[in-house]
C-alpha cells in the first residue's frame, strides 16, 4: 500500500534551495498535509514525490519502491492541480476517462471507472460539458474524479482549494478527506491555509525555507509547538520577551519587561537565558479592573473588534507590550476601549522558546 518515504531530499534552483535535506514518512491511508508560507518549498516537495521535478539529492520511495528514476506516469499517483489543469479541448467525460484510456484499460472498465468517479463527485449529469462551462468548484471536482479514475492509490493535491470561493472551499475540503478515506487512499495535500490543514489532516508537516520544522497531528502542533514559527503559524500567539530568573522543581519564572513576572511549566531553559513566552489569544483571560494573582498583568483595552463568533481585544499591558485576547462573543461580558483590565493565563498553557538568534520579527516572518 502507498506509504511515501523521503530520505534527505534536496532541490536547488540556482542559488535558491527550494527543498533542504528533507526526510519524511507519510503512512499508508493517511491524510497528510504540507503547510507553510508561499515559497517554503511545499509544492516543490509534492512535485518531487510526483516525479514532475527531479531532486538534486536524496531518495524518494513509494510503497517501498525507489522511484527517483521512474517517470510520473509509472508512479501510480493522482495529481490535482490548483488551477485544475482540465484539458480544455475535452469534455468532462473525456477528461475523466483519460487516465484509463492512456493506460489501455478495457473500454468497459474505463466507462465503469469514469461513471463511478463522476457519480462520487456528483457531476455525472454534466459529462458532456466542457471545462469552460463549469464553475470553479465543479472543475476541481472533475479534476479530482479524473485523478481518482486513473486508479491512483496515492493522491497528491497541490493547493486544490486555493482558487475557490471561501464557502465552496469549506465544503469541498471535507469532501476531499471523505473521498480519500472511503477509497482507502493515501493523500498528501499542500496548502498555505493552516485552518484547512487542521480541519482535514491526520498529520501535518510545517515547512519554512525548504525545511520541515515540525511534523505532528493537528492537536500536537497546536498544543505542543516545538518551534516558535510553528506556534505563530498554527493558530495565533502573543509573544512576550523576557529572561529566566528562577527555576525550581515545578516551574520556571520569567521576568518580562517592566519587572513583571510570569511562571511557566516549561523548564527546558537555563537561568539567565533570554526567552520568548508564547500564549495563545484564546487562552488569555481578561477581567475588568486590576486583580493581582499568578500570571496576572494589568493593562487597558486599546482596540475592540466584533468578529461574529468572537470578540477580539488588543490590550496594552502596563509594561507597554500589546497582547491580543479572543473571547467567545456570546459567553462573556463585553469590555470597552480604555477600560482597565487584568490579563491572566494558566501556567500550563504557555510555551517558552529560546530567543531567536536573528531576532523575533525575522524568525516569525512569512517571507
Amino acid at each position, binding site marked *: 500500500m502507498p506509504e511515501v518515504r523521503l530520505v534527505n531530499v534536496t532541490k536547488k534552483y540556482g542559488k535558491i534551495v527550494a527543498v533542504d535535506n528533507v526526510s519524511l514518512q507519510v503512512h499508508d491511508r493517511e491524510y497528510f498535509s504540507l503547510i507553510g508560507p508561499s515559497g517554503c518549498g511545499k509544492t516543490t516537495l509534492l512535485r518531487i514525490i510526483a516525479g514532475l521535478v527531479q531532486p538534486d539529492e536524496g531518495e524518494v520511495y513509494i510503497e517501498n519502491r525507489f522511484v527517483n528514476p521512474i517517470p*510520473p506516469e509509472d*508512479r501510480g499517483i493522482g495529481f490535482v*492541480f490548483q488551477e485544475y*489543469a482540465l484539458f480544455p*479541448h475535452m469534455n468532462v467525460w473525456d477528461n475523466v476517462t*483519460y487516465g484509463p484510456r*492512456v493506460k489501455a484499460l478495457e473500454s468497459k472498465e474505463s466507462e465503469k471507472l469514469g461513471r463511478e468517479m463522476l457519480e462520487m463527485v456528483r457531476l455525472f449529469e454534466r459529462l458532456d460539458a466542457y471545462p469552460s462551462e463549469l464553475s470553479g468548484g465543479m472543475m476541481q471536482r472533475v479534476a479530482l474524479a*479524473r*485523478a481518482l479514475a486513473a486508479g491512483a492509490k496515492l493522491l497528491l493535491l497541490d493547493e486544490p482549494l486555493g482558487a475557490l470561493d471561501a464557502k465552496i472551499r469549506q465544503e469541498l475540503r471535507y469532501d476531499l478527506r471523505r473521498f480519500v478515506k472511503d477509497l482507502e487512499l493515501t493523500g498528501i495535500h499542500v496548502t498555505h491555509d493552516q485552518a484547512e490543514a487542521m480541519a482535514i489532516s491526520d498529520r501535518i508537516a510545517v515547512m519554512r525555507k525548504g525545511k520541515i520544522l515540525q511534523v505532528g497531528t493537528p492537536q500536537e502542533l497546536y498544543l505542543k509547538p516545538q518551534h516558535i514559527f510553528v506556534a505563530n503559524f498554527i493558530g495565533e500567539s502573543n509573544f512576550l520577551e523576557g529572561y529566566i530568573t528562577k527555576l525550581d522543581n515545578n516551574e520556571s519564572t520569567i521576568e518580562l519587561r517592566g519587572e513583571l513576572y510570569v511562571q511557566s511549566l516549561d523548564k527546558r531553559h537555563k537561568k539567565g537565558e533570554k526567552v520568548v513566552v508564547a500564549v495563545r489569544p484564546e487562552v488569555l483571560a481578561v477581567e475588568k479592573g486590576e486583580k493581582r494573582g499568578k500570571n496576572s498583568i494589568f493593562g487597558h483595552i486599546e482596540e475592540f473588534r466584533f468578529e461574529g463568533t468572537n470578540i477580539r481585544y488588543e490590550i496594552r499591558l502596563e509594561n507597554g507590550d500589546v497582547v491580543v485576547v479572543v473571547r467567545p462573543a456570546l459567553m462573556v461580558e463585553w469590555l470597552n476601549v480604555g477600560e482597565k483590565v487584568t490579563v491572566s493565563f494558566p501556567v500550563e498553557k504557555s510555551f517558552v522558546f529560546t530567543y531567536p538568534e536573528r531576532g523575533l520579527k525575522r524568525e516569525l516572518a512569512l517571507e
Partner: protein
Amino acid sequence: MAGSSIIKFLDSLSSRSSVRYLIYSCSLAFFFALILVPPILGIVLKWNTMADIFGNSSLMSRATSAIYASFAIALFVSFIDVIAGLPMAWLITRGGFKWLRSLDTLADIPFIIPTVALGYSLLLFWNKPEGISSLFGTSLVSPGWLLIILLHFAFSYPVVVRVMVGALLDYKREYEEAARTLGAAPLTADRTVTLSILKPSLIASFILAFARSVSETGATMMVAGAFENGPIFISNLKTAQEPGYEGALVFVSFILIVISCTIFVTIRLLGPRLKMPIKKVWPVAERKLSSSGVTNLRNGISLLVFFLLVLIPSLFVALPAFYAVTNGTLNQAITGAGIWQEYWQSLILSYSIGAIATLLNTIAGLPMAVLIARRRLGTTLSSVLDVLVNIPLIVPSIALGISLSIFWKNFAFIPEIGLLIFVHLSITYPYMVRSMAAAIERVNINYEEAARTLGGRPFTVFRTIILPLTKYSLIAGAVMVFTRSVSETGATLAVTELKTAPVLLVNWVKGVVPATSLEIGLGCGILVLFSFIILLVLRLFAKRGY
C-alpha cells in the same frame, strides 16, 4: 518644454470623443482606400480583358500549370515546414540545455535575410560549383521545381519555428504534467493534449508558411530556371508582353487571389473544427517512441535538417561576399564603378521605401490594431476587420501588384515612386496591424481602466500603459514591415520599372545586367549586412525604452 506641451495638448484632445472617432475613421479610411479596395477594383476595371486568354489555348495551358505549381509547392512546403519545424521548436523549448536557446536566434536568420539574397545563396549552395555540388563533381540540384521547394522550405521553415516556439513557451505545462500523472507516456501526452491545445498556433504557422511560399517572387525567379509558377509566369508575361498578355495577367492574378483567399478562409473556418486523432492510444508503442533513444534520434534529425537544409545554404552567400572583400571587388563597389552606381541607388531606394512604409503603416496601423483588439466596432465587425486585414498577407504579392498597378494607373498624376509606395504599404500593412492587435489583446484591460480611474486621459493611457507593454510587438511589427518591404520583388516588378535592390539583384543573377558571381555575392552580402545592422539598431532602440 515644447514636447511636454505637445503631449499635454494631445492628452486634452484625446478626451474628446470626436477626436477619437476622427482618428479611428482616418485609420479605417486608410485601410479601405489604400489597402483593400484598390486591388479589388483593379481586377474589376480590367475584367473584360480576361476574355483574351480563353481564346489562346497555349497561354491558358501555361497559366493553369503555373497556378497549379504555385499552390502544389506552397501546400507541400507548408506541410514539410510543420513536420520539420515542430520537432525543432520542441527541441528549442524543451531540450533542457541553455545552448539550445541560441538555436532560436539562428533559426531567425533566414527570416531576416532578404529573400533574393537567400535565393542566390541557395543557388550557389545547391547548384553552382562553389557549393555542395563540389563534393559530387556535378551540379547537385538544377534550377527548377526541386530547387524552388528547397528555397521555399528555407525561408518559410523559420516562420513555423518562430510561431511554435512562442506557442510552446506560452503553453501551460500543467496540462502535459496532468496527462503524465494520469499515466500517459510523454509522446501520448504531447499528441493527445499539447498538440490539440496548440492546434490554433499550428494552423496559424501553416497559413503563414503557405502565404510566404505562394507570394515569393524574386528569389524564386533566381532558382526556377525554365520552370514557371504563378508569380514567375506573371513576371515572364510582363517582360515578354506577348499578344493578349494583359488579359492573361488579370486572369492569373484573379485566380491566384481568389484561390489564396479561399484556402485561407477554409483553413480559418474548418481548422478549429478539425479533430485531432486523440481518442485512440497505443500505450506500448508510444512508450517506446518516447524513449530517450528515439527522442535523441528525432532531435538529431531536426538539427541535421536545420543546418543542412536551412542555415548553411542560407548563409552560403557569405563565402563569395568574403572573397569579394579580399580581391578588390569591394573597392570597386565603394567607388561606385560600373554596375555599382546603380546598385547603391537601388539600395537607397529600397531602404527609403521600406522606411516610408514602416512609418506610415505604424501611424495608420496602430488605431486599427486598437479597433480590432478592443472590439471597438462590436464583436462581429471587429472580427470581419480582423479577417480583412490579413488579405494582403495571403495574396501573392505579384498578383496584388498587378491589380494595384491597374487601379493606380488610372490616376496619371501619381508618380511612379508613389505607386511603389502604395504597393509596399498594401503588402506590409498586415504585419504591423496583426502584431500590435495581438499584443494589445494580451494587455489586460484592467490596466487601462486602472489608469483611467487614476486620472489618465486616453492618449496618456495609450502612451504610458499600452505602448510600454506592447513595445516589443511594435518593434517586431516595424521590423517585419521593413524587412518585408526591402525583400519585396514581385509587386515591385508588377507596378514599376524602378529598380529596387532585390529587382536589381534578380537582373544580375538572370544575366539581364552582366555581373560576376563575386559581384552578386557582394551585392547580396551588403544587403544582408545592412539588414542586420538596421535590426540591431532597432533592438537597441527597443532596449533603451522603458
